[in-house]
Structures are given as C-alpha cells and as structure tokens.
C-alpha cells in the first residue's frame, strides 16, 4: 500500500494542482483573516452572519485562531473538490485500468489514495493555519488588538485543538467527496453534487425544517471544524459524521471492489 501512497503523492504534487490549491487556500485564509482585523470597526460586522467581534475578544487566546476557524468550512469544500476529482478522474481518464493492472488489489488502491489525499489535506490545513496566524499577527497592531495572550500555553492549546478540528472536518468533507467521486465516476458531477448539497441544499433544508440541522452531514462536518456549540455538540457531530462516512464509505468501497472497469 505504501507504493500506492507514493504513486498518488506524485500525482497530487503536480504543479498545477499543488500551486492551484496553495493559491486557493492561501487566498481564502488571507481573505477571511483580513476581514476579521481590517473590518473590526465596520457596522456590517467582521465575522460570519454579519456578527461583530471587537479588539477585546480578539486579544484573548482564542483571537489567535479566529480567522483560521472562519476559513475551516471552505478548506473542507476545497478538499471535497480535490478528493472527488482525484477519485472520479481515474474513471473519466481511463487511468484506473492502468492502476489496476499494476496493483490488482482494489482495496489497496482505495486505501492508498485515501492516505495520500489525507496527507495532502494536512499540508493544506497547516498552510492555511500558518498563513492565517501570520496575517493575524501582522494586522493585530492596526486593529488595536493586544497579542500578549496569543503567546500563552492556553493559546497554543487552542491553536492545536483548532488545527485538529479543522483537519478532521476537512477529512470528513474530503471523504464525502471521494465517496461521490466513486459513485458518480465523473469529476464534474461529483463536485457539482457535493458543493451544491453542502453549501446550498443543506442550508435551505435546515432553514425550512430546523430539526434536520442535527442530522445533515455538511452541517455536522462544519460543526466539527468549529469545535461544536451547545445547540449541536461536538460529540454528536462526531457520531453523525462517522455514521455517514462509514455507511457511505462501505457502499463506495464495495462498488469499487465489485464493479467492472469497462471504460
């Protein structure tokens, strides 16, 4: 399986994908972090849903990761697109047959792909986090935010916890994308369904029937990245997310193992 991981990493580190992802993730991280600090006095708010967060809150230990946490969901969507396209393109390009001739164990191919994409997602999250923190430090003075608390062990703990949560959420979105890629076998269809469902349909559904919020996959993935809140606990989101991914993953794995490779 190590051989599959190495081969997959060679595909993932191709300049167009790697630099494109770095640029997208970096751009999102820079944008959201900058909004928090540069629009600190704006009446339209400087954080999600038009809410405001001021210098006092940002001066606390949590202030270090505020921008990073805002970008978490979008990192998940980027991961969904990458995992979905990297999986589905093996069918659409016809390259799956080459892979299976060289590595006949389909489960090894699947597991190797998953591990390689996990590593790619980890790099993506770490880069976004590092950039967000650097920008937070750079803009703190201008926003009159005291950064003393950002260097404490409490802040480091929050940073570690946030990075882990965002990585976990990114993995959930990515795995969801991979499942869609295996089911649809077309990058465009898999990405379209994934993005449409997570960013639009779930929100409409949750707005219409509030009780569905607790059980929708995308909302629970996003909640993992944010660390949970009293209305939707972290533990609940872990359980729901795992449920979706285990059932969806098992279905996709069985299909991948049994389905004829006829294209």
């Amino acid at each position, binding site marked *: 399986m190590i051989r599959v991981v190495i081969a997959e990493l060679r595909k993932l580190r191709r300049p167009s994908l790697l630099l494109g992802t770095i640029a997208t993730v970096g751009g999102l991280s820079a944008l959201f972090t900058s909004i928090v600090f540069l629009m600190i006095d704006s009446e339209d708010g400087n954080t999600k849903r038009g809410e405001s967060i001021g210098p006092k809150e940002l001066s606390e230990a949590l202030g270090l990761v505020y921008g990073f946490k805002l970008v978490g969901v979008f990192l998940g969507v980027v991961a969904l697109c990458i995992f979905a396209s990297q999986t589905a393109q093996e069918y659409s*390009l016809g390259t799956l047959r080459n892979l299976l001739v060289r590595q006949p164990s389909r489960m090894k191919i699947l597991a190797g792909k998953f591990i390689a994409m996990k590593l790619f997602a980890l790099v993506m999250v770490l880069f976004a986090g590092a950039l967000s923190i650097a920008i937070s430090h750079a803009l703190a003075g201008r926003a009159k935010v005291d950064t003393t608390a950002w260097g404490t062990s409490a802040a480091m703990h929050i940073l570690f916890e946030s990075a882990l949560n965002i990585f976990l959420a990114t993995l959930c979105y990515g795995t969801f994308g991979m499942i869609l890629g295996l089911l649809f076998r077309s990058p465009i269809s898999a990405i379209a369904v994934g993005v449409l469902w997570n960013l639009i349909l779930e929100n409409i559904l949750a707005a219409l029937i509030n009780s569905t919020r607790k059980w929708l996959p995308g909302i629970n993935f996003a909640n993992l990245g944010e660390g949970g809140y009293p209305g939707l606990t972290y533990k609940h989101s872990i359980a729901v997310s795992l449920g979706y991914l285990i059932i969806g993953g098992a279905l996709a794995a069985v299909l991948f193992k049994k389905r*004829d490779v006829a294209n």
Partner: protein
Amino acid sequence: MNKTGTVAISASDLTKIYGERAALSHGSFVVPSGSICGFVGPNGSGKTTTIRMLLGLITPSGGSATVLGESIKHPEKYLPRVGAMIEGPAFYPALSGRENLKVLAELGGFPLARVDELLGKVDLAERGGSKFKTYSLGMKQRLGIAAALLPNPELLILDEPTNGLDPSGIQEVRGIIRDLANSGTTVFVSSHILSELEMICEYLVMLREGKVIFSGRTQELLSAQKPIIIARPEYEVDLAKLVNTLSEAGYQITIVDGALQIAAAKEASAEINRLAFDSGITLSSISVVLPTLEETFFEMTGDNK
C-alpha cells in the same frame, strides 16, 4: 503449441454477458508461451472485453481462464509479470510522459531507472518531460507501449498498438514485438491492420459476434483457404472465349482488370493452362495466389463491405 508446450493464456468457455447481450460467448482458445498471437475480429466482436477479463478488470459471467498458469480469479498472482495496453493509452494529461511512467513504476514496484530506459526504447527520450496532453497520437501510443513494458513482462497484451503511428512507427513497434518474442516474451496483440498481424503472428485467435471462430496457427488458417488462380490471356479478345471454355469445365470465374480469377485448388492451374491451349488461347501469365489474412478474415467474418 510452442517448443516447450506450455501455454501463456488458456480460455475455456469464457463468457461475458451484459444484460441480454453476450459480449463473449463460450470463448475457448489457447495462446502458446513464447509466441506472437494475433487477436482479430470486427469492432464489437468482444476483443477488448476478453482482454479486460484476462487482466482482472471485469468479472466473467461464466467459464474460466488462466494467464501464465494462474486463474484469472487471482490477477494479483500473474499481473506483476504481465504488461498491457488496453484500448489506447490512458494517462494523466497534466503530468509529463516521464512522470506518468513513474507513477506506474512506483505502483508496480519497478525501478525508476527503467522509466528513462523505456522512454529511449520508444523514442520519447527527448519529449519525456513534456506534458502528456501535448503529445501527438503516435507519441501517446508509444508511451502506452513503454508503460506496458515496465514490468519486463513474460506476457505482453497489446490492444491496437499501432493506432495513430506512422509507417516508421509501425515498423518500430513490429521490431519491438519481434525482439520481445525472440527473448521469450509471449505477445498477445489485437490490431485491425491485418497485414501487420500476418507478418508477425504465428498464432491467431479470431472473433466474430462474441464467438471464437478460429484459434490456431496462422499458416493453418491460410492454407485451409481456397487459393485464387489468376489467368491472363495474351490477347484481350480471347477473354470471352476463355471464360466460356472454363465455365463449361465447371470453374467459377470472375473477371478483374482483364484477367480471370478462378477459385480453385492450385493443382487446377495445369488443367486451366491445358484447356486454354486446346481452345487456341495463349496465356500470357498464370499464377496461384493464396488469400491474405485480410481476405480470409473478411471471408470468415462475412464482413466484406
């Protein structure tokens, strides 16, 4: 069977059914080890389906087959010794030819040094660093052949390897196939250029509408066909008279380009010559021509449009 009597591929009643259509129905054939075996049949006759089953990509609906002595139910036991190019070359467009081969070399556990060696062998050394999407069809095809050669295979399965190649490229591929066969590699090759196959294949498996209609030595197939005797009278005015004479003697004749084509055993040429002489007709030439593989193929598949 070859000198050692072993078989590289053996299929018995191999069947693949999609819905109500049989892509391959009870296909039985043998490919001797160390031979070059051509795999021919019209489009949709089941060639690619058969190749995919042999490579473990699709599951047979019935029957059985072995590749290099192992059942196709366990492709992991023989695929490390098999090289294959199926239905044209498929690679990642944004990766270079070299990177594409490295992906497959890493996956199969082959030394990366082999990549440059193979790029040289298929004349892609200079363009190995260019993205696959910039390659011409011929270059893509050559990269596919290089990928198939990565494992230094005991069995090489090639599906239409000369598609898109220019005459010199076709000659190079023919040379590669012959070299491999000389070194003991079994080559199972499908192609629609039957003249190519006739030149290099000692064995043939012929398919029609999902059924194996011939499996055996190429020479055996060709020699079983009726030859054509071509007789040309010295003077064109004698053509009609010669037709009458031979028709009366019971021969079936067609006239092509001022000559008579007579489907008959080659021994009949002496009698034809004598009948012409007795009728006062001098023949400027008389020759016996064996049908080509292409003619035989059309004859057997009934696809002579």
